């Protein structure tokens, strides 16, 4: 299995063996991510970071990952101050930037942008989110968090919140299907997981249960993965408040959960998780965002050929 020059576009192009190898590599690099040791693994390499949409965690964790491995980061900066504002196509921008870098991280507002970029690039493209499409590095860090803080084998997980539009949960479901997880989907009927994804999971012999009650879902799961519920999905603000309140994770709710339950969230959160949960042993979301660094270090080192 070789990762050198591999484009990372969608989870669907990764087998379980490939995912395991990436997670193993991330675990080896974790001491470097937390400054416990130093590395020059990517010295002399340049990572181009092109974000056409705002981002905090994804962008900064990619930049940190590259710097922790001794590499340099080249940033597109503001789209308004670039040739893109003059009407340059993404294809042309990629053809130019590939000449300046050893890999390109791309976030774009249009679905399929990373796939298109990969067709015009001789260096690896890493998809950091393409519209409502894919965000595979988020899924890798979610899997890594589950593996480090809970367990991937025999996992029972509840996914709660906006399961209709949330791209992170779609990719995560696909990846969890490779590990045979038991999945409970918790959402109001307006934000249910698309039927084709549920059918796809069932066709992989995954146990899937759908409910709108978080109390019911929480009792026997190992991980509760919450996602942001966006106000703009609801025409009626009162309905939004009702749904958001019904899915809010509080210390009182967590009293019904197993002691080892971990609460995850891709962040930013609004009011899905009561801040009082932060101080409980269940809270895992800030660690989750840190784990983005070793996971992205692993991906960068593998696609740039610095590690096998």
């Amino acid at each position, binding site marked *: 299995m070789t990762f050198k020059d591999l484009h990372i576009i*969608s989870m669907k192009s990764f087998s379980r063996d490939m995912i395991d190898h990436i997670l193993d590599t991330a675990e080896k690099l974790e001491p470097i991510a937390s400054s416990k040791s130093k590395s020059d693994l990517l010295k002399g390499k340049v990572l181009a970071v092109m974000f056409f949409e705002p981002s905090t965690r994804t962008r900064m964790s990619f930049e940190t990952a590259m710097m922790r491995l001794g590499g340099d980061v080249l940033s597109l900066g503001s789209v308004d101050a670039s040739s893109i504002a003059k*009407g340059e*196509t*993404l*294809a042309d921008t990629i053809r130019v930037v590939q000449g300046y870098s050893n890999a390109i991280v791309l976030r*774009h*507002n*249009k*679905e*399929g*942008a990373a*796939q*298109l970029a990969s*067709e015009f690039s001789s260096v690896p493209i890493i998809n950091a989110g*393409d*519209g*409502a*499409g894919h965000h595979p590095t988020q899924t890798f860090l979610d899997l890594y968090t589950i593996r480090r803080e809970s367990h991937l084998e025999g996992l029972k997980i509840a996914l709660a919140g906006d399961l209709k539009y949330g791209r992170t949960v779609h990719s995560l479901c696909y990846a969890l299907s490779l590990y045979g997880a038991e999945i409970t989907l918790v959402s109001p009927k307006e934000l249910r997981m698309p039927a084709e994804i549920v059918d796809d999971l069932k066709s992989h012999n995954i146990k899937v249960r759908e409910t709108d009650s978080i109390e019911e879902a929480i009792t026997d799961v190992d991980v509760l993965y919450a996602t942001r519920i966006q106000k703009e999905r609801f025409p009626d603000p009162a309905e939004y408040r009702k749904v958001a309140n019904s899915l809010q994770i509080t210390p009182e709710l967590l009293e019904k959960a197993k002691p080892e339950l971990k609460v995850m969230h891709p962040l930013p959160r609004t009011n899905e998780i009561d801040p009082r949960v932060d101080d409980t042993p269940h809270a895992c979301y800030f660690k989750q965002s840190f784990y983005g660094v070793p996971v992205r270090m692993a991906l960068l080192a593998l696609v740039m050929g610095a590690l096998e």
Partner: protein
Amino acid sequence: MSLEETPIPEIRVHPIRNGTVIDHITAGQALNVLNILNIPNPSSGVVSVLINAPSVHGIKDVVKIEGRELNVEEVDRISLIAPNATINIIRNFEVSEKTHVHIPEKVSGVVKCINPNCISNSNEPVTSRFTVKPDGRKITLRCSYCERTISEGIGDHLL
């Protein structure tokens, strides 16, 4: 003989000497077939179209193109909207070759992605591209860029 009893002369589409007859087109799809074949154009010759023609299995559309033999790629594109069509190559009034359309694994530049936010619908130097998945009598197209699928009304999204 009264006016009501006067026999109405049957209007027939004449046999063609050389060209292609596309038979058993899904009823209502003939104009989309012409669209896929880029007809009419100045060099398309005489083209006859039958819509909702009676057939053993109900109704069908038929297209007769004079002076043009369709190639394999053109025939396969037709399968997206008329998977049961048959292609008859006519030479000197005789059926010289008869084939069924073959559903291709991939198509590009035929159908437009239905997702308005797909990168293939923007000002980029790429043509739309889909993988084709036959499912019984139904066909599903999956965009190679955004992965959105089209299974209903494919003929409405021709480029």
